[in-house]
């Protein structure tokens, strides 16, 4: 379902070229749980952004569900991100003026879902991440772990095929981090959601079915 063939990503800043990804060949099947590890600046986020259709390869072929997305328009890419992909970031990226329900609702606003269904689905998603008692709280009233759970609820609210998590435990203490990881594990096992998770923590990485190690823009090891 995710297939990359000879994918390159080169950033040009003035005259300097930075090669963030070199000749990536990768295949991820539906329902896999994958960890990506590697030192800072090795290209993990770049790879994830391409998988998530936030960015396009400079060269090579990227097929998502057997479709080549390289010639998709802004509107079509936005639609794929909305329906098939859920992002979880290190910085949570919640809107401070919204309570949990409204934060989780944002993807539904762009999905053409009927107004009265939006709240129901947002609440369901919050229940799934164990926040049924914090639905009307704002991010500033919650702990980091709780905020990240809102972000996960937002990522799953539109029932995506893939969840992309870029260092989701990077800003959390060990205990909250483990809780977050167990949510991902549950989503993968019970809902068959594909999980792609970037992490520095070897303990977290090894819980995945497969670990991909990246160094200087190349995949150096798969286990």
């Amino acid at each position, binding site marked *: 379902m995710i297939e990359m063939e000879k994918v390159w990503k080169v950033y040009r800043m003035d005259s300097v070229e930075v090669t963030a990804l070199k000749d990536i060949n990768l295949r991820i099947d539906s329902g896999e749980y994958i960890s990506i590890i590697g030192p800072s600046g090795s290209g993990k986020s770049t790879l994830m952004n391409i998988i998530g259709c*936030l960015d396009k390869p400079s060269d090579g072929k990227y097929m998502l569900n057997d479709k080549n997305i390289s010639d998709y328009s802004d509107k079509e*890419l936005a639609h794929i*991100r909305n329906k098939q992909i859920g*992002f979880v970031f290190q*910085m949570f*990226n919640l*809107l401070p*003026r919204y309570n949990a329900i409204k934060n989780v609702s944002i993807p539904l606003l762009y999905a*053409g879902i009927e*107004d009265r269904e939006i709240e129901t689905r947002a609440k369901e998603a919050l229940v799934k991440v164990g926040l049924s008692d914090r639905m009307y709280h704002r991010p500033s009233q919650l702990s980091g772990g709780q905020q990240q759970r809102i972000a996960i609820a937002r990522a799953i609210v539109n029932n995506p095929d893939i969840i992309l998590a870029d260092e989701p435990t990077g800003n959390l203490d060990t205990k909250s981090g483990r809780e977050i990881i167990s949510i991902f594990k549950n989503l993968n096992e019970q809902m068959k959601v594909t999980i792609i998770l970037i992490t520095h923590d070897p303990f977290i990485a090894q819980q995945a079915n497969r670990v991909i190690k990246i160094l200087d823009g190349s995949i150096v090891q798969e286990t």
Partner: protein
Amino acid sequence: MNKLTYIVTAFEALSSNKMRSALTMLGVIIGVASVILLVSMAEGAKQYILEKFAGLGTNLIIIQPGKVQTKGGNFPVAGIASTHKLTLSDVRAIERQATYVDGVFPMILGALIVKYHDAHADTTVVGVNEQFTRIISMMPSIGGFMTREESDAGRNVCVLGYNIWKALFADQNPLGRIVKLGNFYFRVIGVMEKKGQAVGFDWDDLVYVPAKSAEKIFNTDSLFGIRAKAISKNVINEAVAQITQILKRQHNNNEDFTVVTQESMLSTVDTIMNMMTVVLGGIAAISLLVGGIGIMNIMLVSIKERTREIGLRKAVGANKRDILIQFLIESATLSTTGGIIGMLIGIGGGFIMQSMISGFHISITPWAILLSFFFSAFVGIFFGVYPAYKAAQLDPIESLRYE
């Protein structure tokens, strides 16, 4: 995203920073309120002037000494352009010869102090004839007006304006009493009905005497002007032509006078006042424009601050158009909300000023309200386009990383 959701989203964003939104709207509020207030004031002044002139009787023809060398209906202030004067013999000539004229009266004006025993009052003496009441459609409320005989002979009789009566006699019956005008004694034969203020003067401060007596008081035989009434609306232009012909003959074929209808004079006033309305409205519209620039400025700041929000929205499925519309609606909401508040303040302020300041008239015109409202909405959208476009173009990855 459906339309209602866009609007709700805009309100949520704006109300999360109420102080800033209010200050941003202030520019538009002031702009719209001042457009409405100034236009309403100018319109009110226009209607007030037209009303007061129109109150002077219908089919009125105005004859002034002097000739103004312009087309159209401008009429000269007495004396400025006159080389030759109008006299009572001109009035008699019009009365005898002009068949389209139903009545005519002379006017001699002068300021004086009128005295009765110890009481006195500042007044303007107007020398007229017995036809005055019929042409101007004003009646004495006590006693009568001068007769033809009194007018022709120049008897020392006078009719007091309402305020003069009150000032000299309080509530006493003044009929038959003798008042002093300049060096002359006049018998009071009537008091005019209360008429109120007109443009530049108060009807109730006048004292009416026969024109011939006024000639004596002021020692002059030149008239301020002559007023005539056409026999009907349909022949008013013929009446003007006739009067012009008669007076030319009287003045050795010199057209050293001006004959205009009240109607053409009013249309000049109308033109001038409309110009004033447009100029005032235009000045106020500039402040609305400044308000629009304020909106653009704040939207640019807001987009900078909300870069991560924009990145997040794009990551979860917003396309460029969604972001563009979201921010356009925010700026349009700012400007139209400001527009509505400004509208209420403009209308309310107008009524308050009208009730507090006497002689201040406003006329709330629907077109000024609609125009300023739609202009404010337009300003919001126009000045919102650039910030919204910038927001829509932001790269989601960089935006999400923005500190």
